[in-house]
């Protein structure tokens, strides 16, 4: 074979500023760009949640300056009910797509997957560059909806038809705002498909000599499995968005039923199926939850193993469980639709796999806790956030057992119970995964250490704060506090308002604590202690690069050769209690190597 694919992964170091930092082909720069995008997005999303929380705690509170964001949506700085829904939609969309998908998967995956498999870059660097810039354009399109027409869409991040498909008659933002939403997400899908293509081919084809699949670190496995999920999910969401756009602007009737009257106007559509949108959306939407959480699982495993200085109880079983979650994630999506009017037998059929998917998730948690038991865990910010992830994942996951059952879900559906559940199990857990990854890999990404004291303060504020915010949500949900309401005027909701006030204060404090992180990030980037090549005494290939941060082609003149399993800790070697994957040193190990 004269065309070695490794050649495809080589390109010369750029010399101009634009090619080096803006339109870069280097997977490391693209990874950092994704991280920066996620950072901007997460703070935008957080500010939106602050505004919503203030309104929920103190209804009709004037929030100074809000009218600058929208003169119509917040006359006299008091938001209208519609504007609350618009902010809620944007919060959900920004967080799910541009934070939870981009940061743990695209940002860290881009930076570290090629290095962990021993490649010099991704095989299709131009597609990789496109994947970021397409995602960036998608973000701009989405955010632009704040500033055009009557603001962003109010349909929620799920954009249920028919409201999302009828156009301006559906309410403020349902015209141009929803069109921009659908266009943005369709563009986003293109970016993620290009990214998945690169991730899959990198893992399959660019592994360095000796790097068998079972020798890949768990983070690399997680990114690989996630990219397989992303490939399947985004390839379905994209045509769904296109059909939605056509209903919206071209007058087709895919999702709008006959005889629909909105605001006393008979809609000029016929015969569409509102459930069709839900099926197409949730076929993407549920795997999307795992697209957010599986990379975080991989990162957390990677961080935990390094800090507890011994391999997991089973490397292989954890990989199989992540794979099982990926496969099952396509069979459970109907649990979002228990009360949609679909056949009750379908609910039952979707309920079983939903309960089954908890088995691999539970096994993963048991592997973590079982491996942690009796280990001498090194406490640092990264390992604390990894523990925080496990805690959040378990706490949020437990409420999933309740929601998985149609009979209970009928009552809990559309209450704060669901909001508490998914924020803990998926949103905060994944964000803790991102933090664990950041504190762990920052030295390799920038060449400087992050401040541990500030890091630990950041952790405790975030950990306690997240519980203070999201645990009461479950209580509110059981008290039948319905979600997506902008004010609680009903009698039975009045006594719950103090809880909302508590949550708002907790959200403001926890959010403010994130500025500690930003300070730490920026300060450490420029003035942090210079990082050694392998500060955590870790074993995988990213710690074997000749310089820190890695040079343009990652490994300098010689590609590494892999001699060991990814997590050979607790051994006696010349460097300490570990042996690096790329070290030819012979060591005696308890575990048979693969």
């Amino acid at each position, binding site marked *: 074979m004269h065309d070695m694919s490794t050649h495809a992964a080589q390109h010369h170091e750029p010399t101009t500023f634009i090619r080096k930092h803006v339109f870069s082909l280097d997977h490391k720069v693209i990874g950092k760009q994704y991280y920066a995008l996620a950072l901007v997005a997460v703070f935008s999303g957080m500010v939106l949640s602050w505004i919503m929380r203030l309104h929920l705690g103190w209804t009709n509170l004037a929030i100074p300056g809000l009218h600058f964001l929208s003169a119509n949506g917040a006359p006299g700085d008091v938001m209208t009910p519609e504007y609350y829904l618009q902010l809620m939609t944007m919060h959900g969309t920004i967080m799910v797509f541009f934070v939870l998908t981009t940061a743990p998967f695209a940002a860290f995956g881009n930076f570290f997957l090629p290095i962990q498999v021993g490649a010099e870059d991704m095989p299709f660097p131009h597609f990789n560059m496109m994947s970021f810039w397409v995602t960036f354009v998608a973000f701009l399109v989405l955010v632009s909806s704040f500033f055009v027409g009557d603001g962003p869409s109010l349909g929620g991040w799920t954009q249920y038809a028919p409201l999302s498909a009828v156009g301006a008659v559906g309410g403020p933002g349902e015209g141009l705002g929803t069109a921009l939403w659908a266009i943005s997400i369709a563009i986003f899908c293109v970016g993620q498909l290009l990214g998945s293509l690169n991730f899959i081919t990198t893992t399959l084809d660019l592994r360095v000599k000796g790097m*068998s699949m079972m020798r890949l670190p768990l983070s690399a496995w997680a990114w690989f499995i996630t990219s397989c999920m992303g490939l399947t999910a985004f390839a379905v969401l994209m045509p769904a968005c296109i059909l939605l756009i056509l209903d919206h602007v071209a007058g087709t009737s895919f999702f709008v039923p006959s005889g629909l009257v909105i605001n006393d106007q008979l809609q000029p559509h016929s015969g569409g*199926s509102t459930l069709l949108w839900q099926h*197409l959306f949730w076929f993407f939407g549920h795997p999307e939850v795992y697209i957010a959480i599986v990379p975080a699982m991989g990162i957390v495993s990677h961080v935990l193993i390094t800090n507890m200085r011994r391999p997991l109880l089973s490397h292989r079983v954890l990989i199989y469980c992540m794979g099982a979650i990926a496969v099952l994630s396509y069979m459970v999506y109907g649990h979002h639709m228990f009360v949609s009017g679909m056949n009750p037998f379908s609910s039952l059929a979707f309920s079983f796999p939903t309960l089954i998917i908890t088995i691999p998730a539970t096994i993963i948690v048991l592997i973590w806790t079982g491996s942690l038991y009796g280990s001498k865990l090194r406490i640092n910010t990264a390992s604390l956030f990894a523990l925080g992830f496990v805690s959040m994942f378990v706490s949020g996951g437990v409420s999933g057992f309740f929601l998985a059952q149609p009979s209970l879900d009928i009552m809990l559906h559309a209450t704060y119970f669901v909001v508490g559940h998914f924020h803990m199990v998926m949103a905060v857990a994944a964000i803790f995964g991102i933090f664990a990854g950041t504190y762990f890999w920052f030295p390799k990404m920038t060449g400087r250490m992050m401040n541990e004291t500030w890091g630990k303060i950041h952790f405790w504020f975030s950990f306690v704060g997240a519980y203070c915010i999201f645990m009461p949500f479950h209580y509110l949900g059981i008290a039948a506090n319905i979600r997506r309401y902008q004010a609680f005027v009903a009698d039975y909701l009045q006594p719950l308002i103090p809880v909302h006030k508590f949550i708002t204060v907790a959200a403001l404090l926890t959010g403010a604590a994130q500025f500690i992180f930003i300070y730490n990030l920026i300060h450490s980037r420029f003035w942090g202690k210079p990082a050694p090549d392998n500060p955590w005494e870790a074993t995988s290939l990213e710690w074997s690069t000749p310089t820190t941060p890695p040079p343009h082609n990652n490994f300098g003149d010689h590609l590494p050769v892999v001699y060991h399993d990814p997590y050979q800790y607790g051994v006696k070697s010349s460097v300490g209690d570990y042996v690096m994957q790329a070290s030819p040193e012979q060591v*005696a190990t308890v575990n048979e190597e693969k």
Partner: protein
Amino acid sequence: MATTVHEPPQIDSRRRPGTSHSGNGGWRNLVPADGDLRVARDYSPPASSTGIWVVLFAVTMMFAALTSALVVRKGASFDWRHFTLPSILYFNTFLLLASSVTLEVSRRRVAAFMGGLRSQSESPARWLYITLFLGLLFLAGQYEAWLQLSREGLFLATNPSSSFFYVLTAAHGLHILGGLAGITYVIRKLSKSALRRSTLDATARYWHFMDALWVYLLLLLWTKL
């Protein structure tokens, strides 16, 4: 207790790199115990040959989603109006099938050319140009089918059946455009003598897949519309 590097090589003849397509290192340990790394040859399949299957999988998922949407939408209510497909579609199908044949011919010619079996005086790109031409003709034919339908008063929003016709043919047409871009890229690389065999193979696989996809879509439209 097992020592790692002293273990006997876990490579058997089936596991030799180069015979499997799972990339460098395969699924098992490929570093031999005696440290003789030459045994584990530094081989991996070209990324484009794996990548094209990844692309085709995504395309399959996309059209599967549209197919299921069509089936669900058709069953959702009674407003589905049947219409006869424009006859030019059958001619277009013939064009596309022919283009696959010409692409296969060119693939073999280019391979022979790259292998030095043909003289420099022959243009290896000729059949690629013919494929390109047939592809463009197919797109023109599809456009003509749209014009015929619109003359009959069937537009995108007229009826769900016509909506799906336009959506499916447009989506397929866009993918054909991608294939034409691929063939143009191959011709350009060939003229610079910088063509990789794997690029040509991947383009051909994509094109044949588009061909098969069109036959599937035609059957779907023929039976459902």
